[in-house]
């Protein structure tokens, strides 16, 4: 009945928005189908209903639409998508339509893309690691199942390669594992890199890939991460898998949000982003977690480029307030991947590693901090004027970059190998400097290089 009703009284077209008059019974956040005069189908979400007027944001934009001849139908409720294993091995666009030439994705059941907040008393604190096979991350900023941790990068750095490498290699130590990768505003070249890196995972039926490319409809990006998380929640909490959700690039998502906000004439907050950016980002990032009495976990890794490397920009700033840590890439790090260990942090790491590993990581960070001080001093007075301990710390920094951080994009290291490499780097430091590691551990592992 009602879902078949077509409304044709279009009062205005404005940016990505369309105003439909003389509607009845349209609900807020309802999903809409829009057929333009030329017969092309587009999709929309209801942003506001006011008596008989509905304001709809058009995911594909309003280009070439006319007030006459446009027909809008409403689906009777907020958007739901099919969920289930059918997404695995598939490549779809930002709205979930197949991009791989396959049939539409079907599922045994559907779920609302906006999700429902997880009752905080039913959350299990994150625990146990998601191993990425990337030494810089597994050694010092371990991902923990149920955690959200962001990758902060800037233009020109290989954050997508790193994100794809994590997506390709991540595992939960033999337990069922899947990856949902949501790409927002990626160039065709970047998307190809991601697809190549993730090919094996896709072939193994462990990957759902949602691609919204740079020349795809911008407003569609508002939906893409929500689809990804909805798919992931079902794979995890019903399917019993540990699911890693990678969302890149969040800046593209936030820009789409800003575009809608500006078109609506909302009062802007920082840098013209809407005042609800924090809540909106939280509604995505907070969908990570583990649930008491349910199997699986959802771990979320948003990737974002900081405009002009500015960490106080609203997108990285608000992301930092919500996520439980960050992995920072810096052009100042001379190896690939350029992970800046001192700026990176995993707040949940304690729950994912052994106490001995935690001590080892703390020791590395302390030594790297000391090395950074020594390097600043050396720039003033010259390296030859440094004391022996300071010089050994500089040696450690080099060894750490070479043995631990530097890693090929197709190289997957076991945790044991990563730890071995950390000890090899620590060999350049004298035992008296390793005050954070227990004596018996030092006896067993520390071989001071002469």
């Amino acid at each position, binding site marked *: 009945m009602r879902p078949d009703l077509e409304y044709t009284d279009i009062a205005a077209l404005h940016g990505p928005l369309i105003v439909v008059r003389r509607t009845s019974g349209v609900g807020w956040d309802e999903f809409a189908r829009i057929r333009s005069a030329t017969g092309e189908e587009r999709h929309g979400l209801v*942003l*506001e209903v006011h008596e*008989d007027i509905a304001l709809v944001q058009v995911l594909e934009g309003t280009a070439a639409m006319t007030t006459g001849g446009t027909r809008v139908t409403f689906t009777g409720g907020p958007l739901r998508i099919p969920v289930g294993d059918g997404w695995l091995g598939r490549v779809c666009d930002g709205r979930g339509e197949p991009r791989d030439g396959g049939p539409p994705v079907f599922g045994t059941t559907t779920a609302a893309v906006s999700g429902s907040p*997880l009752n*905080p008393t039913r*959350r299990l604190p994150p625990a146990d690691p998601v191993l990425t096979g990337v030494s810089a991350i597994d050694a010092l900023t371990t991902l923990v199942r149920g955690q959200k941790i962001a990758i902060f990068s800037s233009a020109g750095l290989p954050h997508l390669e790193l994100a794809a490498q994590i997506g390709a290699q991540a595992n939960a130590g033999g337990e069922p594992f899947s990856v949902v990768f949501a790409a927002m505003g990626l160039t065709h070249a970047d998307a190809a890199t991601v697809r190549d890196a993730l090919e094996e995972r896709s072939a193994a039926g462990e990957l759902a890939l949602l691609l919204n490319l740079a020349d795809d409809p911008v407003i569609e990006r508002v939906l893409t991460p929500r689809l990804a998380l909805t798919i992931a929640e079902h794979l995890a909490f019903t399917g019993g898998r540990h699911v890693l959700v990678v969302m890149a690039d969040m800046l593209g998502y936030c820009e789409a949000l800003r575009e809608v906000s500006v078109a609506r004439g*909302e009062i802007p907050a920082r840098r013209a982003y809407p005042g*609800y950016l924090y809540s909106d980002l939280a509604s995505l990032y907070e*969908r990570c977690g583990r649930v008491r009495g349910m199997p699986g976990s959802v771990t979320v890794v948003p990737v974002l480029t900081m405009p002009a490397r500015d960490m*106080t920009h609203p997108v990285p700033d608000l992301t930092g307030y919500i996520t439980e840590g960050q992995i920072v890439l810096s052009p100042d790090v001379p190896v690939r991947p350029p992970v800046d260990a001192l700026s990176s942090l995993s707040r949940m790491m304690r729950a994912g590693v052994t106490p001995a590993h935690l001590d080892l990581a703390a020791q590395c960070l302390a030594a790297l901090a000391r090395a950074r001080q020594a390097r600043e001093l050396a720039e003033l007075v010259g390296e030859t004027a440094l004391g022996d301990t300071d010089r050994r710390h500089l040696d450690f920094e080099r060894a750490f970059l070479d043995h631990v951080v530097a890693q090929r994009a197709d190289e997957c290291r076991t945790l044991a190998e990563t730890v071995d490499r950390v000890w090899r780097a620590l060999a350049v430091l004298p035992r008296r400097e390793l005050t954070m590691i227990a004596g018996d551990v030092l006896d067993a592992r520390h071989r001071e290089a002469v």
Partner: protein
Amino acid sequence: MGTLTRVNGPLVEVAGLPGLAMFELVGLGPVRLPGEVVEIRGDRATVQAYEYTGGLRAGDPATAYGRPLSAGLGPHLLGGVFDGLLRPLSGADVWLTGARTPSGGREWRFTPLVTAGDPVDLETPLGEVETAGAPSYLVLAPAAGRVGAIRPAGPVGPGEPVGRVGGRDVTLLRRWPVRRPMPYRERLEEVVPLTTGQRVVDLLLPVSRGGTVAVPGGFGTGKTVLLQQIAKWCDADVVVYVGCGERGNEMAEVVAALAELADPRTGGRLADRTVVIANTSNMPMMAREASIYTGVTVAEHFRSMGHDAVVIADSTSRWAEARREFASRSGAMPAEEGYPADLASALAAFYERAGRVTTLGGRTGSVTVIGAVSPPGGDMTEPVTAHTQRFVRCLWTLDRDLAYARHYPAVSWSASFARDAEAIAGWHAREGRPGWGERRARVASLLAEADRLALLAELVGAAALPARERVALLAGRLLREGVLQQSALSPADAFCDAERTIALTDAVLGVIGRCEELAARGVPAGRIEQSDFSPVLRAKDDAPDPETVRARAEGVPGAP
């Protein structure tokens, strides 16, 4: 029954409900999502909805409840976890939706303290309820009058009256409109400190019972860990922890930790003196706005029983942002950075609900408010941070440089203030701890001197400084590492009482004094610096009592 005319996210407009009052509770749509009237124009009222409004339509029904948004207060609060409207989360569904099934409630053991026929005043205790926690739970007379009936000692079921006063039944559940401060007889002038167990706070930036604190800090500065430490260890009777728009995993952690930790004062669980209000950042936004008021209402409820309650709100910035979003949707003229013009007055009014008072029933109780502030981009000049500082007695600014140097708690001693410090020094003197103010002044001046010299040393190199100044730099380091740093993970040091704080501080000050003497006698600064200070620096983690601490300091620095 009225109808909805407009739905714009949490902003809903209703028509056809004549006689609506401001802040009246309204049920929206067929499942009656809760909302609160915030504006009335003619026959239209604007309602802020406390749940996700997806699917609500123009034309859907609206119901007026005839009462303001109010919280249900009772003995079930202690040890529980609630949402921003104080609905229990413990028994609620895994995935929260707008509709909640009310829980049946449980039986409580009631002991009467009056007998039928007694005349009682307003807030005279009628009886006591046994709870798992230490704080005694009193049922207070809602009005003066004569006790018509009182229940004998024994179990009381949910909703059953425990007595009758002045012709009105009294039950264990009391409703209070959260935006209205609970009345008290008078504010007390006397200043009594709240011991938080965190040295940098208790020593340098103490807070009084009934005081107000703002804790601004950018992300990664350890704000939540510091607040959680205070929630666990401060010597209040009741702690209300409001997670306002923050991380769900952290809420899960704090709830799990409170359930496991023993209360050092009573031996019970810390959870049993704690009320957790969890409105994580993905839960409906406008409930965040209410949760701050709900939290302080719960604290006032326990204050009326004569308890010292502490409200910890993490973070007030999310509350302010919720107000901003709503103001923006309702088309209000924006003031600073889009916040509504009443931001400053709303902040002031909220913090004024703190206070140490004589209650209407003549007991002494307090509500202390500790509010986290999350400045965007670490900008301390942004409106919420700037205005909050005007209205609080205490400011604990968290410093990013300290946090990067892994100095926790990263409370800046130079950018913070404590306006009750002198009065608290006077209280310590009366309690037999003279010299408290002098000790604080000495530590503060040593830290300030070390900071000044550190800037100088960055320019000219520490080696170029005279011995006296190099010892002053050393003094700063010893105070930072031996006294101010405190690990939340250290079993011996997570909580530090007043005596141990004094012992640690005096031990380090003694070492500093001896270093100064050595420098004055002409011992080269390099040799003083090379002494082994680790016994006294490690004392905070491995010397459990004041005697051991004092023993550690002896002979440091060693004879050069």
